[in-house]
C-alpha cells in the first residue's frame, strides 16, 4: 500500500505483508475505474479514520465496495479499507453490527490483521451463532485459531461438519485438534448419531478425528444413505 502518509500524526501505519500482497492481487484484477476508486477511498480512510457524522466516509466506501469493485472483489477491498482506517476492536464491532452479510464477512477476514488480542471475539462468537455458512467459514479463520476458547472452538468445528463448511476453512486445525480427547469424543458421538439415523458420516469428520491422534474407536465407514440396518440406540445423547 502506498498511502501510509499519516495526516493525523499517529505512529506509522505498517501494512502486514499479507495485506500488501492482497492489495497487489486486487489491483491486478480491478479495472482502471475501480482501481482509481479504491486508491482514492484508501487515501480517504487513512486521512480521516474514526467516526464523524452519521456515517463516516470510509464506512460509506465499505458499504458501496460491491458496486464499485464488483461483487467478487468487494471483500478484499473492504478488508483493505478497514486496515486503512485503522479500525480497532470497538470500531470493528460496530461495522460488523451495522453490516450486510458480505460486510460482516470482510470484518471477520480482517480480524487477524487488525486486532492483536482477544477483544474482537464477540464478533466471531456472533458469526458462529448464525446458520449462514459464509459467516461460519469466515469465523473459523486465523483469529479464532489464536483466541477462541477451547469449548467454543470444538463447537465451531462441529458446526462446520453440521452445516457442510469444509474443515479446511478451520485455521490451524492440526495444531488445535492434536491430542484433544474431548473433541475426539464429540466427533465419535456425532458419527454414531449419523450412523444410527442411517446417514453418511462426513468425510471431514474422519479427517479431524485422525488429527486428534486420539485412539478413539473409529466410527464406521460411510454408511450408504437409506440403509435400514439397525444401529442400536446410541447417538441420542445430544
Amino acid at each position, binding site marked *: 500500500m502506498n498511502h501510509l502518509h499519516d495526516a493525523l500524526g499517529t505512529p506509522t501505519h505498517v501494512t502486514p505483508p*499479507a495485506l500488501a*500482497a*492482497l492489495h497487489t*492481487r*486486487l489491483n491486478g*484484477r480491478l479495472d482502471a475505474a475501480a482501481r482509481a476508486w479504491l486508491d482514492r477511498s484508501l487515501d480517504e480512510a487513512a486521512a480521516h479514520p474514526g467516526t464523524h457524522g*452519521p*456515517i463516516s466516509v470510509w464506512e*460509506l466506501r465499505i*458499504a*458501496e*465496495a*460491491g*458496486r464499485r469493485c464488483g*461483487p*467478487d*472483489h*468487494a*471483500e*478484499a477491498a473492504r*478488508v483493505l479499507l478497514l486496515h486503512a482506517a485503522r479500525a480497532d476492536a470497538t470500531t470493528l464491532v460496530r461495522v460488523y453490527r*451495522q453490516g*450486510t*452479510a*458480505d*460486510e*460482516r*464477512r*470482510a470484518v471477520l*477476514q*480482517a480480524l487477524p490483521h487488525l486486532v492483536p488480542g482477544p477483544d474482537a471475539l464477540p464478533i466471531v462468537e456472533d458469526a458462529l451463532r*448464525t*446458520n*449462514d*455458512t*459464509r459467516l461460519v*467459514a*469466515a469465523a473459523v*479463520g*486465523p483469529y479464532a485459531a489464536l483466541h477462541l476458547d477451547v469449548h467454543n472452538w470444538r463447537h465451531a468445528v462441529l458446526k462446520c461438519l453440521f*452445516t*457442510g*463448511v*469444509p*474443515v*479446511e*476453512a*478451520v*485455521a490451524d486445525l492440526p495444531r488445535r485438534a492434536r491430542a484433544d480427547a474431548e473433541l475426539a469424543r464429540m466427533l465419535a458421538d456425532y458419527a454414531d448419531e449419523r450412523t444410527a439415523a442411517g*446417514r*453418511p458420516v462426513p468425510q471431514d469428520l474422519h479427517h479431524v478425528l485422525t488429527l486428534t491422534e486420539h485412539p478413539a474407536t473409529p466410527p464406521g465407514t460411510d454408511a*450408504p*444413505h437409506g440403509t435400514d440396518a439397525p444401529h442400536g440406540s446410541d447417538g441420542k445423547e445430544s
Partner: protein
Amino acid sequence: MRIFDPHIHMTSRTTDDYEAMHAAGVRAVVEPAFWLGQPRTSVASFLDYFDSLLGWEPFRAAQYGIAHHCTLALNPKEANDPRCVPVLDELPRYLVKDHVVAVGEIGYDSMTPAEDTALAAQLQLAATYELPALVHTPHRDKLAGLRRTLDVVRESALPPDHVLIDHLNETTVKEAKDGGCWLGFSVYPDTKMDEERMVTVLQEYGPEKVLVNSAADWGKSDPLKTRKVADALLKAGFTEDDVDQVLWRNPVAFYGLSGRLDLDVAGTDATHEGNSILRGAPKTDPGTDPDTASKNRDTAPKAEPTTTEA
C-alpha cells in the same frame, strides 16, 4: 423461461416455495420491506428486519439459485405510529448498502398527514441516494390514492421514470402510465389482479414499463403467479419476447436504475477466478442426503483458509 419477481415477501415463505419458484423459472426476486402483520412497536424491530433482508434472506434464496435484492423503507401503515417513524433517521445508513435496489414500499395506506410526510421524505431519500422508488397504492379508495400519489411524485425531486407504482388495476393503470411511471401489477388468488385480467390489460396497454409480481406474503397468495401470468400470456398469443420483456427485462431495467443489481447468483459459478466471497461449490453428491443437500447446495463454501482473497 426466466422470471424476475419484482415484489415478493420471501421472509414469509418456506424453502418449499423457493424450490417451486426455481422450478417454475424464477431466478431473481426483489423483497420490499413491508408490514409484518403484527405491528412493530420499536425502531429496533425494523433494524433486525432490514438486517435480515440484507443477510439471511439472500442466503436462503441463493441456496435455491435465486438472486435476492431488497428495497427498504418505512411502510405507509406504520408511518402512522410515532414509535416507528424514527426509523427514517436510520434509513440513510441502509440505503447505501450494495443490495438495496430501491426505496420501498412507500406510498399511502389510509392517506393521513403522517403518510404524506413519510412519502415525501422517502421520495427525497431516493433522490439523494440515487435509487428508484417502489410505491404501493392503497387498497381502499384506490383511484383517489393514486392521484394523490402522483401529485406527491410530481412535487418530489425524483423523476417519474424512477418510480414504480404498484398494485395497479384497470381503474388506475391509465393515469399511472400517463404520469410517466413504471407500472406494477400484483397477481393474487382472490384480490388485486388475476391472470386473465392481466392478459387483457397487457393487450390494451402493451408490455412497455409493465412489471408483474406475485407480492406473495403471509396472506393468501401464490409465489408462482408470475409463471402463471407468463403461461396465460403465451396462451393468449403474446410472443416469448413479450413475456421475457414483462417478466425479466422490465424489472432488470427498473431496479437496474440503482446500479446495484447483481444477477450472478451466488454459488452457481464455483470455478470463477478471483472469487473471494467463498461463493461455494455444489455439494459433490447432493443426492445422498436430502437433509444437508438442501442446506449446502450452492452455498457450501470452498475453503480458502489462508488468504482473504483467492
